[in-house]
């Protein structure tokens, strides 16, 4: 495992980059990243060892990995082969079985407190974690073991961040997001189902370049990618403000590319970078291809009713209605009660008057 001591600079030189180009790169990066001296960047890249990354997979569908390997800026080969030292990823690594598992122990011992633990998926806790067995042991044990000596944890995707589909009601395996299992380590949530490839490599690039974690928001997501909603940067926002909506999937408004708000678009409640970074190398994103956002980077997005309803279904007391339906029933009931009360009051009053009149006569 010599990779641990290799620096970025040596990797770059190995890839045929001249020292001149290297310094040009550092100057350019310094300009784009703000008040950073190019020499500081050059120095960091020349001296800092690459950050070792252990990538483990719990209860998941591998869509995060699928997304990750399609990163265009930076290319994932650069991220994996040059920027980080991806020491373990059982899905894409050549080694298998005991040979692979040995790496985990080695990394723990050699890079204690220095490696990044990237977790794709989450551990199911029911039945002692029996629903996800990895290397002959429940995944939750592997997660806890590797988290112990990690510098920080990256929770890839909606599974690791929030629970996603396997944690949707009634969650039979008790799938649990990482931050509910590991509570003593910094955790970066990179939600999405999957997260955008460039967001994933972007987070890794930040950590490897600056040797620290990016600034996180209240929910533990990197601010640089998750501080605004899809809605805030949506190219159809002008149609929303104007009041121009798609009402049916095949109407004229759909053809004209109007706002998908009424079709249940979750853009107004979804924090992600899709409307700026987009997908597949910036080609498109769901709203651009005419479908509303389903809010896949949000907590419990499977349990918020239909993807095609604007108002959330509320499933309590065996009903499945949205807020308006519940509200109108309540208001209707109270209205009827008031009307009935008025009627009874009037009748009573009449009766009382007659009684009084009888008394007086």
């Amino acid at each position, binding site marked *: 495992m010599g990779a641990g001591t290799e620096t970025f600079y040596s990797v770059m030189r190995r890839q045929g980059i001249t020292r001149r180009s290297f310094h040009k790169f550092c100057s350019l990066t310094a300009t784009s990243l703000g008040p950073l001296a190019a020499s500081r960047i050059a120095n960091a890249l020349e001296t800092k060892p690459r950050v070792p990354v252990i990538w483990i997979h719990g209860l998941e569908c591998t869509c995060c990995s699928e997304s990750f390997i399609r990163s265009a800026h930076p290319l994932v080969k650069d991220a994996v082969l040059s920027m980080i030292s991806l020491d373990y990823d059982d899905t894409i690594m050549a080694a298998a079985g005991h040979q692979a598992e040995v790496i985990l122990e080695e990394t723990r011992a050699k890079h204690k407190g220095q490696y990044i633990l990237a977790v794709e998926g989450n551990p199911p806790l029911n039945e002692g974690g029996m629903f996800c067995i990895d290397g002959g042991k429940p995944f939750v044990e592997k997660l806890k073991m590797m988290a112990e000596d990690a510098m920080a944890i990256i929770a890839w995707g909606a599974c690791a961040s*929030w629970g996603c589909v396997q944690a949707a009601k009634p969650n039979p395996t008790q799938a649990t997001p990482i931050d509910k299992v590991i509570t003593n380590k910094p955790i970066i949530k990179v939600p999405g189902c999957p997260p955008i490839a460039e967001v994933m490599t972007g987070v890794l690039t930040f950590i490897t370049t600056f040797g620290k974690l990016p600034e996180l*928001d*209240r*929910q533990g997501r990197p*601010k640089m990618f998750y*501080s*605004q*909603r899809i809605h*805030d940067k949506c190219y159809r926002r*002008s*149609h*929303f*403000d*104007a*009041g*121009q*909506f798609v*009402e049916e999937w095949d109407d004229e*408004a759909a053809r004209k590319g*109007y706002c998908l*708000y*009424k079709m249940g678009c*979750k853009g*107004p*409640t979804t924090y992600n970078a899709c409307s700026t970074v987009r997908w597949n190398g910036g080609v498109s994103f769901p709203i651009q291809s005419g479908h509303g956002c389903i*809010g896949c980077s*949000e*907590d*419990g*997005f499977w349990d*918020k009713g239909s993807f095609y309803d*604007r*108002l*959330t279904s*509320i499933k309590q007391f065996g009903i499945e209605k*949205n*807020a*308006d339906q*519940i*509200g*109108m029933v*309540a*208001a209707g009931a*109270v*209205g009827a009660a*008031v009307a009935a*009360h*008025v009627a*009874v*009051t009037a009748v*009573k*009053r009449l009766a*009382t008057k007659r009684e009084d009149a009888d008394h007086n006569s």
Partner: protein
Amino acid sequence: MIDAVAPASDARPDLAAIAADASGERAVGRPSVYVYEAPVRICHWVNAFSIVVLMVTGYLIGTPLPTVAGEASDNFVVGYIRFAHFAAGQVLAVFFLTRILWAFVGNHHSRQIFYIPVHRKQFWKEVLHEIRRYAFLEREPKMHVGHNPLAQTAMFTGFTLFVAFMIVTGFALYSEGQGIDSWQDKLFGWVFAIWPNSQDVHTWHHLGMWALVVFVMVHIYTAIREDIMSRQSIISSMISGERQFRD
């Protein structure tokens, strides 16, 4: 004014000439008592107007009007509706705060809607009396200078608590557009620690609107009813501030 009224030592609750306020103090009846001070009345009507605007615009944000024709740059329908909603929300917040501040300096009726004297047995007895009266089991209304105990309970829950909830969730939702470095986020962003998916906050805010619709219905009905049935002025009191006892 209440301060000018000497509390009677013995309890004679059914005498019409005796007016009792919700905290149980007995007062010698007079044709009219000054109850609602000017700031209370101003806050009442400003809040009422804001709440109506907020309900209409809020509903239209959840269920927008049919699509308008023409270029996007020629129209700003949802934009104006949202503006009206946010503006009315800020007005409501300011006057709600003013009302809270007035509770500290105003007369003792101005504090009524901000608490329920849960520890007082007499209070709950009178709540029960009012409930029985609304169920047509009691005929005679008791005289109250301020709110009757049932009304006080309803005002505290239906107005103070619900509106506070709407203001807090409303500003939290507003902070989403203002950004995570805004003061709205710093003050109200904690709401998203309770409901991490803001879709839930939208749903609760929406349910809160319907709860207020129900409150407004009951509030207006009982105000009109009491005005007629209890022979005490209710509606005109919120304009003049005086409560008249008509017998």
